[in-house]
Each structure stands twice: as C-alpha cells, then as structure tokens.
C-alpha cells in the first residue's frame, strides 16, 4: 500500500508542535461548546467515540530493571534484594514487587527477549518510540502520531494523541520532548501535553465575551488565516490553523483533563502518585474518544544509584497501575480494543555497580503488553540463567513495532512516498510481527 503526504517535517512543524507541547496555543482561543453539551448529541458522541483500536503507552522512561519486574533471576548473584513470586501462569515467576500483576499474568503478554542497539537514553527513546533509528533527512513519526493518524479522528474535539507527563525537566527525555514527535505527519498529529504543571490553562471562555462574539471572532480569524494560507501557500499558516482547530476541541473537552473530576474511589484505587493518577486519566480519555495516550513521569527509572530506594516505590506503583488498567478495561468491555504497553527504552545491567545501582543494558530486557489484539498469558522469549544474553526468540524494535501495528490493525508494511525523498516503510525491510503474540 502506498501513502502520500504533503507535509515534510520542516522546522515550521517543529515550531507548532512545540506550541502544542507547551499548551500555549490554548491561551487566546475561544470556546465553542461544553464537553457535556457536545456529547449530548448522540450522533456526534458516536462519531467521536468511534469504535476502533486504541492504545495506552505507560512510558517507563529511564529504563526499568527487568530483574525487578518481568525477568527475575532468583538464586543467582544477580538476583538483587527483591525476590520472585509465582504467577497464575504455571512455572512463570515475576518480581515479588508485582503481586497484583502476578494474578493477571493470563491477561498479559511479556516479552523477555527484547534486544536492541542504543545504549544511551536519547537514542533509545528515539528508537523505542518511533520504531527505528533515524533515517535522514525525514523524521519518522512517533508511535502515538502514527496511531492517531491511522486510527484517530482528526475532526474529533478530543485530542487523539495525548502526552500526560508532569515533569518539566528530565535530562535526555526533556531533550527528546523538545524534538519533533509527529515527524513528517505534521503538527496535527503531534501530542497535546497535560499533567502537573501542564494543566492546559486558559481554556475557559471569558465571561465578558458572549458566545456569539466568540464565534464571530473565530470566524474572522479563520477567514483571514485561511486566505493567508492559500495566498502564500504557507505550511506554517496551515499548521497554525490546525492548531486553532485543536484548541477549539480542547476547550470543548477541558473537563476530561481535570483530575479532580474523576471519581474519588477510582483515584484511590489507582494510587496517589502522579503516574498512577495520569494512568487513570488515560483510561478516562480513551473512554471518551482519544486514541493514543502516553503516560510518563519524567525519567525516574534511570537508577544508576539508589536502585533499591527507587525500585521499592516505582515497581509497586507500576504493578498496581497495570493491574487496575487491565482489569478496568476488561470490566468495561474495552480491553479487546485497547492495547496497553508498559515499556522503557532498554533494560538494566545484570550486575549491580559499586553504587548498587544497575546500568544501561539494551542487550536483553523485558516489556509487557495487554489487550488490543495482543494475546494474554504469553511469555515470549527467554534470557540465559544470569540474564546476560537472549537465549530464545530475540525481539528487536522492528519486530516489536510490527507486532504493535498488526495488533492495532495498522499495516506494518505500508510504504510512504514523500516529495524528493526515498520511499520508506512504516516498518522497514518487511519485518514480520510476532505471530505468537497476536490474537
């Protein structure tokens, strides 16, 4: 299949995507309808909540330890101080820090044989969010942008790709966040960022301006902007118009971004931390029409030191969040159509360093998925007894992305022709999905 796009990943797109990331595009926009009012029209509600595959990415940035999550090595010198426990899959053990996931392993697919190349964060994040290494001069779109473009509704008032991340900083992740996420797909497929300080301010219409005045102003702005775009053939103006359209949608669905509007019982159940709260918010956003929500919390998993102190907190939080998400989605009849992925950019070294932390290790690591076309109760691949090497069924980034795309019903091998650029594929070299993991 061929796919042709007019956008090119120019600096203009970068500029406007940054506006999205910072939420500043919302500052001067006008409201068109309340969220509740919007969804009181059944046809529109149906359209907005179009049934289709969706995805929640729990982005474990910094790279979690496979030994303290999905691939413990009890009884070895590398096992670390956290033990291993049995799961509801006979013969399969995971970290003792994950008792809740141990009870739903029949719903999860764990890959214990991830083996990738980049050993530094920025490059690892790039490859594990886009699916491949950079291939200049174009910028490959991030997973969320592809899913939003392929499965989302650009006309939906609910943003189709949302990044929930309260951390304004984050070392390499901060640098990555400042880059071009949507790549050549263009600004309209970039993420809307919320969470913590990114609360998408100024979404409420001023009381001093009537609805009619708002509509008149927006009509005038739209007319002149469109005229400018057409007269000058300006992609920047086009992107800006897309941004304004997005703002209108955002204003209409602002309540979706209000954590305080979520049921207290649900908030308690998910746990108190920002990551847990945003995972709940992700479920809420998916339920209400978003297509891809990426939940991050800075870059907390990079535990070169304080490995014990950090993993004692991070892994139990992940355990509960994944359990709540999967069981919630199943209870609501949404798991079949919603893919949940929990992964970072690589794993951690088998050996503990002198500071009893674990260092970067892309050679043999683990991740987990559930729902959305992925078969539950599968542990794919294996590492050797000490976790040094992949012993069975190594999986690289291309196989992973081919599997994710296939599970979501997206053609992994679609080809793209961009002006003056070589043809490329969504997943290069015809790499096949992992059949064992697909429903």
């Amino acid at each position: 299949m061929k796919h042709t796009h007019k956008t090119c990943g120019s600096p203009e797109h970068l500029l406007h995507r940054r506006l999205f990331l910072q939420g500043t595009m919302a500052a001067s926009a006008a409201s068109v309808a309340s969220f509740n009012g919007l969804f009181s029209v059944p046809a529109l509600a149906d359209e907005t909540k179009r049934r289709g595959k969706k995805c929640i990415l729990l982005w474990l940035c910094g790279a979690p330890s496979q030994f303290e999550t999905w691939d413990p090595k009890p009884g070895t010198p590398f096992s670390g101080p956290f033990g291993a426990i049995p799961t509801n899959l006979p013969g399969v053990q995971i970290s003792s820090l994950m008792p809740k996931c141990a009870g739903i392993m029949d719903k999860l697919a764990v890959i214990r044989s991830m083996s990738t190349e980049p050993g530094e964060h920025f490059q690892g994040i790039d490859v594990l969010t886009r699916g491949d290494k950079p291939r200049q001069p174009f910028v490959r779109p991030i997973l969320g942008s592809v899913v939003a473009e392929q499965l989302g509704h650009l006309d939906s008032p609910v943003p189709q790709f949302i990044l929930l991340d309260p951390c304004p900083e984050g070392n390499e992740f901060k640098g990555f966040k400042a880059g071009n996420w949507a790549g050549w797909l263009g600004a309209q497929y970039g993420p809307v960022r919320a969470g913590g300080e990114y609360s998408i301010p100024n979404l409420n219409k001023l009381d001093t301006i009537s609805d009619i005045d708002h509509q008149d102003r927006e009509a005038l702005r739209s007319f002149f902007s469109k005229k400018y775009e057409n007269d000058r053939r300006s992609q920047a103006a086009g992107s800006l118009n897309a941004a304004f359209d997005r703002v209108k949608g955002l204003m209409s669905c602002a309540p979706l971004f209000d954590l305080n509007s979520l049921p207290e019982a649900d908030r308690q159940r998910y746990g108190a931390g920002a990551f847990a709260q945003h995972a709940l918010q992700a479920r809420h956003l998916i339920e209400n029409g978003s297509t891809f929500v990426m939940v991050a919390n800075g870059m907390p998993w990079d535990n070169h030191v304080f490995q014990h102190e950090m993993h004692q907190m991070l892994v139990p939080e992940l355990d509960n969040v994944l359990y709540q998400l999967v069981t919630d989605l199943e209870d609501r009849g949404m798991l079949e159509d919603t893919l949940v992925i929990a992964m970072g950019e690589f794993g951690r070294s088998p050996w503990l360093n002198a500071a009893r932390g674990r260092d970067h290790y892309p050679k043999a690591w683990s991740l987990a998925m559930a729902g959305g076309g992925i078969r539950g109760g599968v542990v794919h691949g294996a590492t050797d007894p000490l976790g040094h090497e992949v012993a069975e069924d190594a999986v690289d980034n291309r196989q992973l992305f081919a599997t994710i795309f296939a599970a979501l019903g997206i053609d992994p091998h679609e080809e793209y022709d961009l002006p003056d650029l070589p043809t490329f594929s969504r997943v290069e070299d015809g790499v096949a999905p992992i059949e064992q993991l697909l429903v």
Partner: protein
Amino acid sequence: MKSITLKEKHRHKLPMGILSMALLPDGVGLVAGCMDGVYLTSIDKSREPKLLYSHGNYVSSVVSLGGDTIVSAGYDGTARWFDLAEQKLTDSVKLHDFWSWDMTASPDGKHLASVTGQYLAGGYKYEPQEESEPSIRVVDVASKQIVHSLPHVPSVQSVAISPDNQFVAAGNLMGEVRIYRIADGELVSQWTTSDFTSWGIIKSHCYLGGIFAMQFSRDGKHLLLAGMGPMRDPMAGNGKQLWQKWDWQAAEPKMIDQTHEGDAGEGLMETLAVHPSGEMFAMGGRLRGGDWNVALFDMQTGDRMAILKLGFRATEATFTPDGKHLVIVGTQGQPSKPKPKGDGFPDFGRVEVFAIESEAT
C-alpha cells in the same frame, strides 16, 4: 591538633559484597554481613573466610553481643542469633514484613534496635505513604521479645543507640530524625533536615537520599548524621559528602556543625564510626567525585584529619577497641561474568585495615 596518617596494614576479599560488619571481642575476629550471608573472617587474614549462615536475602547488619553470640538482621526482615562456639543458629525473630535496613545493639548488649519501611507513593508529588508496620522495633536481647514498636515515616534507613543505653535514634529517607527513650518508648526529640534529601526535579518526581548512618558522640550529647547533600539530579549520586552534628537535647534540636567547605567531594556516605577516645570520627561511602571516600574528622572542631581514596564503596567502618586501627568493609561493583572455569564469580567484597598513626603538630 594531631596530624593523622592512615597506613594500610591488611587487605583481603570476601566472595560477595559486604554490607555490614562487627569485630569480635578478641579484636581480631570479624563477622561480615554479606549479600549471601554472614561470614567469619579476621582483620589480619589469619582466618580463612567461612560462610556461617544465610538469611535468604542480603544481610544488612551484624553485631557482636560479646562472648560467642552474634546477631544479624537482613532484608528478610528477621534477626538471627548465632553461637560461634557451637557454630549454629540458635534463634530467629521476625521483626519486619519488609527489610531491616539497619540494626544496632546497645553498648550494654541488652537491646537491639532495627528499622524498616518501604517508600511508597502517598500523594501526587510522591509524599511518602504512612507506614504499614511500625518502622522501629526494639528487642530485649535476654528474652528475644520485641519490647517497643515505634512509629516513623518510611523508609527508615539508619538507627543508633546512645552510649548510656537510654535512647534510640532513627533517621529516614525524608531527613526526619526521631529519638525515643528505650525505657518507656516515649518520643523525646524529633526534627527534620532537608539537607540529606532531594526532591526530584530533573529525572523524576519523588524523594531520594535520606540519612544513611547515625552515631551518638561518646558523651551522648550530640548525634552525628551522614548521607549525601541534595542533588539536582537525584539519579546521579553527585551530592556533597555530608555529615552533620546535632545538639539533639536542646529544646529545639540544633545543627551545630557539618562538613566544612572545601573538605568534601561528591558521593553517598553510608557509615559513621566514633573513635573510642571520642576525639574523632570516621565517615565513609561511595566516591562520585573528589579525592576521598573515607575520612577522619575531629569531633570537636569538625576539621578533616585524614583521607582515604579506596577503590570500592565503603559500607561500614569501625575502630578497633584499642583505637589503633580503622577497619573498613565494602564492595566493588559486581563482576559481570563468572570465572572462566565455572568456579563462581570473582570475589568482590573488600576488607581493609589501616593503622592510625598520629603525632602532635
């Protein structure tokens, strides 16, 4: 002021990383709490290291109660009594559901105190969740019964008992110190210093760091704390090598001294030891940047008296009873591969002994 020189006398290795140690009454024997169990060895290499027993997890602390009795505590949450003469475990007491991060014995050998706690998110900004079990357990050695279960905010990573056997102090990840009277379990002092804890603003939103070691001065008037100064990037471990000296008996506990400007590099400090004379103390840990990872300080002035740059992380330091030697144990980074012939891993626990040589200046 005395000029101090630390001269290496002995060094040897144990198979696994060493997290704790205790000298035996003969001043030569040494028991080491390691990642795989408790070893018996000696400071002068006269005894071949021998694995005595295991906890099923890391051994975080080991103490000698005099005679042939040692007690260890581990990440399995238990305290275990071992008779060196009989060469057998004599008792095991469940202290905590989570790890024992640290355990100590009172100088009179009548009480043990152990601390625990798992840091779990209790708020949006990762404020610590309330404890799910008492963070401090005080054990009567004679009866092996828990006599006090005292509250704190988890995780509680360090504990000390005063020289007069009357008070137990415990410090946590948040930099909070609580001191209880052992006789009745009453809280007698409490304060928080933010100097040992970082709020993650770079890579993560959570709290990291804390008070990793504490010791009372010989006169009991002051409490020394050790750890690492705040870091902008909590994962880097690049905070200042930090000790503080507190007047804990003041109506408002008051910090009266701390690592002097120019005396410290970067790294997490995990151990404190007070010299038998009470005139100086040692602090040690992991070197991140700078020229020492173990140093001696004058108790009175706080001046740095001597430094060591060891090629490993110092997890515990102690002075021999005669005050003539400083004994340091620790661990190198774990070897990445077993020995080629399949005979286990290269040894990476370290024991080093230094003679303390001084002359008046």
